[in-house]
């Protein structure tokens, strides 16, 4: 509270300053727009580091903001925001990936730069709001709000089928969230409050209908994650979105779904969560195997990465619904890992696409010889996405599998056992992709003269590589941030499980 303004509020709404500046720039000042957006997102990142500095993992209500907004039919709707172990990493991931994504658009976006940057910064506001809001109505507002900028990013700056993909993205998410809205209204009526902490405390008031409420929230979040079989919007959106859009979509937007389960489903409806856990775990495993298998069959690199997201998020869901400390903290860490690795993969795909304007694997081959730096970076990222020990992906997946293996709620080691097949599948499709594009002799004439990465592109990738190694070698500081919150959540759920049995 040093400057009299809460750092969370400052961080969430700071990108709006950039939006305001952008509005007044003339259409031809494209570089000024890029620098404004980049500068704004970097300042936002700096503020998020300040938030991290002020953050105490053992407190549930860090930097809490509580401003009454208004009362609707007697029930208060508040601006209630706070950060805890469940959200801190998501917040950092958002503020970290946004400047990187903006940097990646320097050459890729030439048309209507102003609109692009405005929507990008608005998207950041929405995402931060989702991770910080503790009032259900406020959360819903931010949740729905993120749809609009992403819809435009896909629909205006996307690929050939962009309109179809954008509309599908919007409608899928909206269809899921209307049921959540209904559940939120019901909760507000039953408990006389929309505040998440208050609702958790008074959850006996709606315990009778918690299975249905769980379902209403779960559908909204499962579409976003996406959980099989609600994933069909994802490949379309990913393939059509511009690179920066894909990075944010994979890196952050999908995490909003998984985060929603952690923030709302588990603490509000613990019994229902325990009851639903095996079903959710089975869906997660289907997602892992299905995503992996379909990824293997792809010829388009971006589609392959998109389907690999379905598989990776399956691991996250498996971890969450193991409902024990290992599973949950592994799940949260894997959310970060996926954001970094898949974000990096999309950036790499974007870089090669800018050079050759195709994403077909058959168009490449032997790229390593033409672009050694690109090849080297790609190898690290591919290995990290595969879960090679020593890199970030391994830590997350291993912890999740450990959690699933020992989970009392799931009650069977088979879940972990089958999920492990997914790791092998990931190795198969990622290595196949790497081999086809990078190894062997250069088969196509056009590929011989490809330029290697320039300085800007290397700067874009370096922070991601640093994190890939850091998380892989020394993940403890990250676990320290999330563990206390995870412990609390697990205790809450397990006491509910005891009631159940």
């Amino acid at each position: 509270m040093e400057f009299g303004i809460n750092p969370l509020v400052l961080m969430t709404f700071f990108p709006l300053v950039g939006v305001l500046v952008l509005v007044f720039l003339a259409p031809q000042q494209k570089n000024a727009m890029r620098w404004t957006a980049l500068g704004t997102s970097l300042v936002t990142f700096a503020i998020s580091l300040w938030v991290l500095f002020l953050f105490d993992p053992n407190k549930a209500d860090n930097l809490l903001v509580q401003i009454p907004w208004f009362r609707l039919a007697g029930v208060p709707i508040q601006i209630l925001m706070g950060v805890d172990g469940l959200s801190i990493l998501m917040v950092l991931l958002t503020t970290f990936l946004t400047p990187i994504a903006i940097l990646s658009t320097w050459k890729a976006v030439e048309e209507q730069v102003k609109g692009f940057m405005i929507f990008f910064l608005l998207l950041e506001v929405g995402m931060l709001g989702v991770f910080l809001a503790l009032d259900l109505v406020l959360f819903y507002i931010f949740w729905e709000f993120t749809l609009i900028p992403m819809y435009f990013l896909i629909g205006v700056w996307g690929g050939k089928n962009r309109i179809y993909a954008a509309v599908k993205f919007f409608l899928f998410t909206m269809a899921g969230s209307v049921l959540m809205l209904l559940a939120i209204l019901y909760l507000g009526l039953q408990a006389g409050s929309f505040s998440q902490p208050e609702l958790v405390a008074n959850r006996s008031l709606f315990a009778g209908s918690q299975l249905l409420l769980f379902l209403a929230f779960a559908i909204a979040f499962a579409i976003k994650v996406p959980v099989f079989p609600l994933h069909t919007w994802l490949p379309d959106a990913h393939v059509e979105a511009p690179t920066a859009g894909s990075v944010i979509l994979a890196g952050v937007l999908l995490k909003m779904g998984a985060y929603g389960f952690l923030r709302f489903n588990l603490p509000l409806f613990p019994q229902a969560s325990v009851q639903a856990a095996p079903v959710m775990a089975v869906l997660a495993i289907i997602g892992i195997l299905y995503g992996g298998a379909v990824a293997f069959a792809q010829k388009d690199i971006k589609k392959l990465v998109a389907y690999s997201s379905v598989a990776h998020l399956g691991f996250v869901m498996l971890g969450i619904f193991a409902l024990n400390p290992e599973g949950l903290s592994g799940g949260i860490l894997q959310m970060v890992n996926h954001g970094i690795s898949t974000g990096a993969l999309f950036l790499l795909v974007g870089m090669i696409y800018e050079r050759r304007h195709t994403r077909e694997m058959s168009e490449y081959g032997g790229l390593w010889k033409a672009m050694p730096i690109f090849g080297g970076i790609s190898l690290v990222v591919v290995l990290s996405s595969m879960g090679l020990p020593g890199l970030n992906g391994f830590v997350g997946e291993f912890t999740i599998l450990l959690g699933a293996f020992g989970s009392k709620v799931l009650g069977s080691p088979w879940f972990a056992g089958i999920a492990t097949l997914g790791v092998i599948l990931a190795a198969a499709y990622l290595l196949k992709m790497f081999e086809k594009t990078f190894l062997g002799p250069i088969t196509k004439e056009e590929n011989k003269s490809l330029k290697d990465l320039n300085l800007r592109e290397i700067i874009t990738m370096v922070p991601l590589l640093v994190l890939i190694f850091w998380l892989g070698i020394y993940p403890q500081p990250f676990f320290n941030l999330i563990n206390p919150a995870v412990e609390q959540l697990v205790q809450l759920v397990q006491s509910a499980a005891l009631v159940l049995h």
Partner: protein
Amino acid sequence: MTRMIDIYSILPVMIVAGWALLLLVVDLWIPRHRKGITALLAAIGLAIALGFVLASSGNTILGFNQMVVLDGFSSFMQVLFLVSGMVAVALAYDYIQRMNINHGEFYVLMMFSIAGMMLMSQAYNLLMVFLALELLSIPLYVLTGFARTRLESEEASLKYFLLGAFASGFVLYGTALIFSATGQLDFVGIAAVVTAGSANSVLFLIGAALLLVGFGFKIAAVPFQMWTPDVYQGAPTPVTAFMSVAVKAAGFAALMRVFLVLFPSLSEHLTPILWVMAALTMIVGNIVALAQNNIKRMLAYSAIAHAGYILMAFVAFGNGEVVGNTVAATLFYLVAYGLTSFGAWALVIVIEREYGKGILLDDLAGIGKHYPWLGVAMLVFMLSFAGVPLTMGFWGKFYLFRTAVQAGYIGLAIIGLLTSVASAYYYLRVVVYMFMKPGEPKLQINPWVSLVIGVAALAVLLLSLIPWTILELASRAVLLLQ
């Protein structure tokens, strides 16, 4: 014996009606190319009436032997009607010149119709309800056909008149049956007879059902919506805008006043009917809108769907605990819907090159690129219609659905929410055409219309941040009802 207080209770209505009569005469001396003066005078008359409404709000008076009532509800609705009237004048000024239908009677007729609506919100006697209904409808039949010699306008007018007259017949017959059931026409008397239990319950119920048909026609609820798309398409666009906001509001004013005061005892029989009507209205409105390429028709079906959302909250009219919220949510929604709707119709006026031409979705292509602010404004309206947050439409729907859930109609709320997802598709289509398709739009931008668009867009956005301002007014209006 007329008392001063009686006059006072309907003073704004008298001002509007009297001013319109004077204007009719004055207009004779205003030359053809100076009809802007008539528009200005009409707006001034409405503004004066608005001043009197605001000055007299907060009072509760039963005037003229309980024929009319002045209360918070009527004041709220009258502000809505008068502001709608002024907006319609602003929208019409340039439009009727461009379309070569520049006659001063346009504004006069609009004022008569507004007087009828205002009277409707104050009526406390079934004969007054009928009188108000006719006063608001007949000028509208004329306005719909105002672009006469153009076939679509004449056709719309005739359809509207025939079906409207039919609906009026239902109201009149319903009134007669209620009179025969209770021996009373004024609300206080009927309510007393019903409470005493001496009313003929069968006739009373049939009468109520007939009134529902009549009002259902005015609010364009399914299955009484047939006329809407044709009339909305054929009428001059400012008239359509005015109808979609003010006439609908007037219909709901009548529906609420009559049903909440007279028929709570019939809720057991009427609730299932209203449930089905609400569900059908939401479904038919939203589904058929999906298939429209003409923006006027699309907005017509969307207007039907929005009436369905309001009806959804109205199903609980007999539930004493919920009914306060029903009224407040409806009033709030009418404001949100009115702002959004005027904005959207204003955009139709901007793109309409010739009468009824240039209003297909294709004609929107490229607006986002060439007229970014106009595009953003339309985006705001479409999102508000779809109920996406940070617009007034979101809070409006939020409150309506909350009311439905509170009353226990969760199934209806689910239908409403799912159909509103369907509606997002056709609202997004407008956005797709504006922002994602290339084109060279030719727009007829007029400062007054731009002003309406700008103010409406800002209001939809900014009021969504401070929704309590309207909410408080709406909930205060509730207290003085009944």
